[in-house]
C-alpha cells in the first residue's frame, strides 16, 4: 500500500505546473500602478510571516540630490531568528541580508526585482542553511506571484 501511495504522490507531483527556470535575478511585471503594487507587496510579505523592517525611498533621495527619477523603492524584510543564526555563523551573509525587493514604476506598470536566495548557497560554507535559502526562494516567488496576479 505504501508503494502505491508513493507512486500516487509522484504522479500528482507530475501534475504540478512546471517550475520556472532558476534565474539568479528574478524580475516580474505587475499591471498594478506603483502605490497599489507596493501595498500588495508589503501585505504579501507579512502574510508569508516575514517582518517588514524598512522601505528605502531611493527616488526621494535622488530627487533631493537634484536628479529626475520615477518612483523607486527598496523593501527590506526577513525573519529575525534565521538572519541572526546565519550571520552569526557566516558573517559574509551580512552583505546580502535582510532580504530585499527593488520595486519601481515602469509607465503604468510596476516592476519588481529580487536576487534569488538560492544564490546564497554559494556564499555560505554551511550547507545546513540551504534548506532555509530554498524556503526563502519559494516564499519570494510566491510573494512576487501575489503581486503579479493582483488586479
Amino acid at each position, binding site marked *: 500500500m505504501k508503494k502505491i501511495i508513493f507512486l500516487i504522490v509522484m504522479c500528482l507531483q507530475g501534475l504540478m505546473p512546471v517550475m520556472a*527556470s532558476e534565474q539568479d535575478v528574478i524580475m516580474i511585471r505587475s499591471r498594478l500602478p506603483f502605490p497599489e503594487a507596493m501595498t500588495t507587496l508589503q501585505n504579501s510579505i507579512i502574510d508569508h510571516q516575514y517582518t517588514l523592517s524598512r522601505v528605502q525611498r*531611493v527616488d526621494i533621495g535622488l530627487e533631493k540630490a537634484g536628479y529626475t527619477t520615477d518612483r523607486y523603492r527598496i523593501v527590506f524584510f526577513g525573519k529575525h531568528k534565521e538572519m541572526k543564526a546565519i550571520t552569526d555563523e557566516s558573517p559574509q551573509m551580512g*552583505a546580502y541580508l535582510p532580504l530585499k525587493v527593488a520595486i519601481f514604476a515602469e509607465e503604468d506598470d510596476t516592476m519588481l526585482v529580487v536576487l534569488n536566495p538560492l544564490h546564497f548557497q554559494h556564499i555560505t560554507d554551511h550547507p545546513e542553511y540551504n534548506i532555509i535559502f530554498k524556503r526563502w526562494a519559494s516564499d519570494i516567488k510566491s510573494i512576487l506571484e501575489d503581486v503579479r496576479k493582483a488586479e
Partner: protein
Amino acid sequence: MMKPAVILSLLLGLATAVQAAPNGADLYSQQCAACHGENGKGGVGVPLALESFIDSASDQYLFNTIRSGRPGRLMPAFKTLSDAQVSAIVAHVRSWSKKPAPVYSNARIKGDIEGGKAIYQDKCATCHGHDAQGGSGTGVTFSRPRDLPIIAPALANQGFLASVSDAMIKNTLLNGRQGTPMSSFIKQGLSEKQLDDVVAYIRSLEKKTSQSEVEQALPAYLKYESSESMEDTLAAIKQAAIGANFRIIREQMFEQGYVEKGKEDRKKVILYFCNFNMLSKALAIDPRVGLFLPCRVTLIEKDGKIQMITVNPSAMSKKFNNEELSKICEQMSRLYKEILEEASL
C-alpha cells in the same frame, strides 16, 4: 470500486497529457512579460508585438533567441525550458501576428565583407554602433523617452548571430522595420548586391567562443578586518567614504526593525552611503541595480575583530547580463576596496 493500478494509470496518463501541452501564455507571462510586456508592447525588452517585427521574425529565430539569449544584453538564455515549452512561448508570441510565420533559408549569403563593412559604417553604425555593439540602455523609463519603440539591436552579439539566418537579416535590410528608425535600404538606393555585402559583413562578426572567454568566478562579497573598536571602525569607513565622494545616508543596527528597540545586537551594524551621481547613472543603465544599491557596508564583530563586509558589485553584475552595467560595477568594486582598505589600516 476501481483498482489502485487503474487509478494510478489514469493519473499518470493525465500527468503526461498536462506536461505534453505547456501553456504558452502562462509561460510567456512568467518568463517573458517582465521585460517584453504582458501584451508584447516592450519595455526592458524588444516590443515583440510590433507588427513589423513579428511579421518578419521566423519561429526558428524566436526559438533560437529564447535558447541562446543575448550575452551581455539582458536577455538571458533559457536553457532549462524544454523544447515544448519554448515552442509554446513562440506560438503565443506568434498569435500577435495576423500573418503566417515567415520561413527563411538557412543558407549563407555570399558577399564582399569589406564592401559590406564600408556600407555598414556609412548607413548602419549611427544606430547599431561602429562595432555593431547596439544602442545603449535597457529600454525602460529610466533610460529613454517612451516614444522610441526599440533600442538598436547589437548585431555583433553572438546570441543574435546564432539565432538569425542571413536571409532574415537581408529581409530586414530590404523592408526595414516600420514603427522604428530602421528603414528600407533599397528605398535608400542600395542594390541587392550591396545588401548581400552588408549581410556578409554582419555574419563575419560571428565568433567561436574560446576557453579564455569563459568567465572566471569572482567572490560574491568583499571582506576586510579591523582591529579597532566598532565606533572607530565606523568612523574610519565614514571618513574614507566621504573622501571618495560618497554621502553618508544612514547608520543602523543590523537587527533594527526585527527586535524591540534598544535590544538590537550592537555587534552588528549597517552603514549606508551613496554617490547620487553614480546611482543615477547606474539606474539609467539598468534599473535592476537597486538590488545592490545604495552602497552599504555591514560591520560584524566576531572574535574580537570587526569584519567589514559588502557585496562585490563586479560579481553581482555578472548575473545581470549587461556589459554596460559591468563597467560601472567594476568601478564600484574598486571604490569599495579603496574605502575598506583605508578603513582597515
